[in-house]
């Protein structure tokens, strides 16, 4: 018997000018095809990310000091968007697919991660994730608490900080002051970090 557990479907970083800085999309498990495919196409994910700006704006009036917005909104019964805002106005969004992965309730991890056959590091991380997921499945039922997403945002934030520490990265180029738009992040390292975070997270993971 297998059960679906949440996984990250998309990680997005939105700049101060409401411009997309980075979008990473992660495949979800599709039980009908028994394969991993993203639940939406990139355009739809862009739209989903941009729609969270509305919620950020709406909520920021009621000012959350910590920057952690928790659940922004659920798009439907499957996808939900969680958000975090840094004090420089950069917004990080994590779209969770509530049925993104499958675990065998019995014991052995079924389809642990989408990239099992890739590098050794990622497969080990996904194996760990699957183990954590099993643990979480046994202890609590379905569902997700806002706090469980915090490791994701912590990791995203530290990845972003690492990016900022790069002297060749000019934040103003990506969100010109008072201007509009801005370039996207092209750093491969940052992209890799996002990939690692997105693939490594399952409910119950405390550090990424």
């Amino acid at each position, binding site marked *: 018997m297998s059960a679906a557990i949440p996984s990250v479907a998309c990680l997005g970083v939105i700049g101060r*000018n*409401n*411009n*997309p800085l980075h979008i990473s999309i992660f495949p979800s498990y599709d039980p009908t095809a028994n394969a991993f495919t993203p639940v939406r196409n*990139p*355009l739809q994910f*862009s*739209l989903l990310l*941009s*729609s969270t*700006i*509305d*919620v950020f*704006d*709406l909520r920021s009036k009621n000012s959350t000091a910590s920057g952690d917005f928790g*659940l*922004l*909104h*659920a*798009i*439907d*019964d*499957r996808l*939900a968007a969680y958000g975090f805002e840094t004090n420089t106005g950069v917004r990080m969004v994590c779209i*969770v697919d*509530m049925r993104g992965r499958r675990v065998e309730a019995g014991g052995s991890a079924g389809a642990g991660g989408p990239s099992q056959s890739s590098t050794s590091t990622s497969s080990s991380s996904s194996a760990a994730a699957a183990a954590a997921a099993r643990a979480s499945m046994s202890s*609590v*039922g*379905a*569902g*997700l*608490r806002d706090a469980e997403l915090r490791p994701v945002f912590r990791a995203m934030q530290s990845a972003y900080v690492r990016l900022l520490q790069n002297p060749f990265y000019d934040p103003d180029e990506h969100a010109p002051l008072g201007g*509009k*738009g*801005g370039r996207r992040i092209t750093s491969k390292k940052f992209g890799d970090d996002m990939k690692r975070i997105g693939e490594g997270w399952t409910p119950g993971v405390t550090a990424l």
Partner: protein
Amino acid sequence: MDGYPLGSLDHNVPLIVVSGLNSDPPEQPPKANGRGLLLRSDLPPLESREASFLQSYFEEVAERGTSWTAVTRDEPFRVRIKTVGRSYVLPSRRAPLPETIEPLTTAPILHSPFSPLSPSSTLYPDGLINAEWIKKHQEAIPSIFVCFHTLTSDPKTATLQDNKLKADLNGIRAILVESGYKTRLVVIILGDKDARTLTADIIQDRLENIRRGTGLDPKSIFYVTPQESPSDLKRVMDSVLSLLYTTAIEYYRDLGRHARKKRSRGIVPQPTVPPTSGTSQTLSLSDWNFRYDFKSAIFAEFRQEIDAAIRSFEQAYEILLGQDVLDIIPSWSPRWNEARLLADIISIRCLRMHLWMGQTSMAVRRWQAHRDRISDFVEARGRGTNNYGWQAWEARWAMMMATLIEKTEVPGLGPSTMTIFLQPEKNLFGERLHPWELLHHTGYWYRIAARHLGARKALARRIPEDDRGAPDASPASRVASKAYRYDTYMCPPPHEEYPLNGKGVNHAQLIIDCLLMARGQFQARKQHRIAAEISLECAREMVTIGSWNEVLGMLRPLWEDKSFRSEWWLDISEEILWLVRRAAAETGRADIVVAIDWELMDKRFRRRENWHYDLSKSLDGVTLDSKPSISISDDLASSFLSASFVFRTKEGRAGETCLAQLSLKSEALGVAAPVTLSSIRVEFEGHLKPITLVHDAALPMNSAEGPISVAVVPLTEQLGGDEKKTKDECENEAEEGTQDEDEDKKDDADKDKTDEKEDQLTGKCDLTLRPGHRQVFEMNIPLREPGEASASTLILSYKADTFEMDYKLSLSELGNVTGWFVQGSVKPRLSRPNGHILHIQPRPPKMKLRLIEPLEQYYANEPIALRVGLYNEEDDSANVKLDIRIIGKGIPRFQVQAGEHKREVDAAEEESQVTDLTLGHIASSSSLEASIHLDPALAPTVYELQIRADYHLESDAATPIVQVLPIHLNIVNAFEANYDLMPRLHLDPWPSLFDYEDLQDVSEGDVVPAKGLTQQWCLVCHYASFATENLDVIGLDMQVTSVTPGGRCRVVNKPEFSADGMIVAPKTMYEARFDLVADKITLDDRHPVAIDLAFVVRWRRRRSIDGETSPVNVTTMIVGQYMVLGTEPRVLASVLHSSQEKAGLVRLDITIENPSNHFLTFGLAMEPSDAFAFSGSKQTTMHLLPMSRRTQTYRLMPLVRGVYVRPGLVVRDKYFQKVLRVIPTEGMKIDKDGLLVWIPPVQEADEKSN
């Protein structure tokens, strides 16, 4: 909600039938079986005003009764009221036996017409329950039957009427009892206005009489006294209804109890007639239990006992979906869908109750649970979920939730609250919830519904053609297989869903409607981005049905407010742009098509395969009536051309030129065709004329290869049609030579066109822009007027065969830092912010004004001459006027002279000026001199001179130019002096009082000889030159400016100078001695005499180099006043040095003067000294007569040489015992201890003698 049988989902509230308020004709018994029971009364219906008011009020209450909102505890009642005339038909309680069947042996047990036991029922023999049953209770059988009557006030007919009423009521009661329904009968008697005449007792009696006569209990009869106003009546009626409400609840409680009793009996009732057709299956015990649970739940809902209702519903639901009911119904049977419908109805009712109780998360959970459960069932037992029918149901299910949220008016989720989702209720607070379990607003639900509708559409499109034909046209086997394959639960069969011929379900419209509802919700909560996303989805649907105008209407606002584009969501923008472009092309909106094509050229966007990316082909395939001319601005469509404008320098001067660069970079996709603009126009804010660059293919491009090319564009200035070539242009012409003629011809042609136009600068160059190429146009702009100029807008014009276009680009809002491009370098240099702003300073005057040979210092008492030179350095001759203005204190007379022009101005106190002194023309590079002569200033002072030349050039008479020369003249005194008046011994003898002759008044000539006393004084002047250079002093003079009358004073001796005078060096002290003699006219005059003196220096400047003699200036300095010829006695000492032979013997004369009228006695004592030996009386007494003087002589033999010796001489007034001061004269001095006499050194004398 539509699709569910009528009444199946209504909010069940007690039903009350009110009769007697209107005169509706009596209802006919139901035709179906003709077995309805007629409740009727013969009494006339009420026709008073109150009656009609009450009827409308009851309608209002009934309207409220249909609401789906929660019934709170505060609400006194929630009922549905049916107002009828004097008659009402109750449905029959028992179904009739079908006529077709054979007569039965035993008496048949008849059941309700809605029971599956009755053959006449649609449920017969194995249906579960249907909405008809709910409807029966909600709409047909009232809990209370209310009769309205009046109480007649006519005492004669009162008894008769009351008896009639009694009979009537008894009749109704009897029928009700006969019907078997437990409907309560209630009588409400309205007192009419005449009833006021009746006393309370009479009314009480009559009511009691009626009550007893009809056997009603006291709670069932009401008397309403006539009320003053409708609101009072309403209030009374509200309280009556509240009372009736509890009665009604009681009624439904009885029914509920009855249902439970039947369930607990645990037997399966047999149908009236055993089924003979179909499967001849009847309901099992669990089916019956389901029925009873369902009924109790409905009755509980009637009573608004929500907990009980949910419990019963859930019980029924579990039975229904358990293994005994739905599991054993074959999926092809219509009963299967009926059971599904029941499951839906139960779930919806449960959801509604969860919402009523505020259990929002529970509701979502219940919603999901039902969906999952049904989906499992459909997968396992039905036709699976991979068909359009399932998607249709999913959509319906989501839509249902949205409707439910709206109709129950969930608190805190309305659009005004701006909440997106609700927090979970308290008892679920700590649980791990799915994000979706927090109840989101209806927009989300509509959107899910739309998504499922989309899936339904996609699945419907996949129905094979064989199944889409009408059933009568296809073989039976196919029909059967179709029935098995397609889930048609609450949706049309395949041949209607997507028929081969004709229209089927309009999926697109369904989706659009759903999306629009969702969009409304999102917009109300200011979630504009989702709303935009939904608009996009909507537009995509509209595309499929080809309603292009609607697509444009939907997306145009998004395009116009630049959603997503301004925030660089490129993939989204791209999607919108392509859709809008397609719609615009279909509807012939050329402007939008071109604007979007322009925008899409940008390489930010992904390249679309097989797209031409050629602006000239933009309108291919677009039907147009005429050749459009389109104008777009950068706030509507961003540009693939980035532009910057920069001036070479920050500042410029009017009359000069300034280099400027316009840089255009094409950011087009690499595959795009080069764009050739027809012209570029740069507009400025401030005093610069617009520049127009026109494309000229004949001109070669500077470098076609590199990423950047810089072209120098000569500009031609057009002054309102008047054409004048700038210098720069001329130079270029010289270089280009051969092209000139062609250009001139064109210019002539252009001239006619531009005649009407404003001034502008034009240039020609190649305006072709290749992708990725930066084209820089370097221009030399003539600056005309001072002020600030900034490049504001750029208008790019493009002309194709099919259209003309202007693109307006704002330059001031572009990136602030701009730089200067040079050929061969991609990066600009000298980047600076606000490079597009130029500060133009006024035209500088080139006329030079200066003082010719100015002197270092000017002095008081000398005439001052200033020579001003005007040197014209302009390129043209100038017409000059001169203004001279002097400010200071005590301005002397002055005159100005320039050539033959001359002006004189008198002295003034503070300000003096000469204006508009015409100097005439000064040719270029020549000069003119003007001189200013100031009369001598009397005292040191400061003058500020301002010399101002106003001129204009011959060539440009309109531009006044001003040059100013300020001069600061500090006039100082050339000399300063201090003075010392010292007494001297006048050698002439004093006149004697006894000399009569001398006292005679003799008048010989003009000079009156003085007869009074005479004194001699010496005025020592120490003067120094304060000038900065050596001066020649020609002479010194002492002027006696005034003497007290009766006295006289004259200068007897003064220093003499040679003709050339004496050179006086600056800052050096010089001494001049003047001897004065003062005397009085008469001896009798005893007053002292005051004399005022002035020291006059006649000087001149040293000879100038050219040998001219400077004029002699006279500086007069006031010495001050001195008092002479007093009456106090004086002691004057005088020395006389003897010749060398007499070994330096010194004679010291002590002269005592007594100008007083008294006889005075003085004692003289001479102390011996080491410094000298003396002869003369050591101690003596001198008697002086009035007006006399006497001299005592000492001879001193100095023992020392070259020093002062101090004769210890004391003169004492014997009478006053007062020591008199001995006043020294020449060769002596005095200090505080007494007199000092200078003894000349002897060596000198020795040497001289040798």
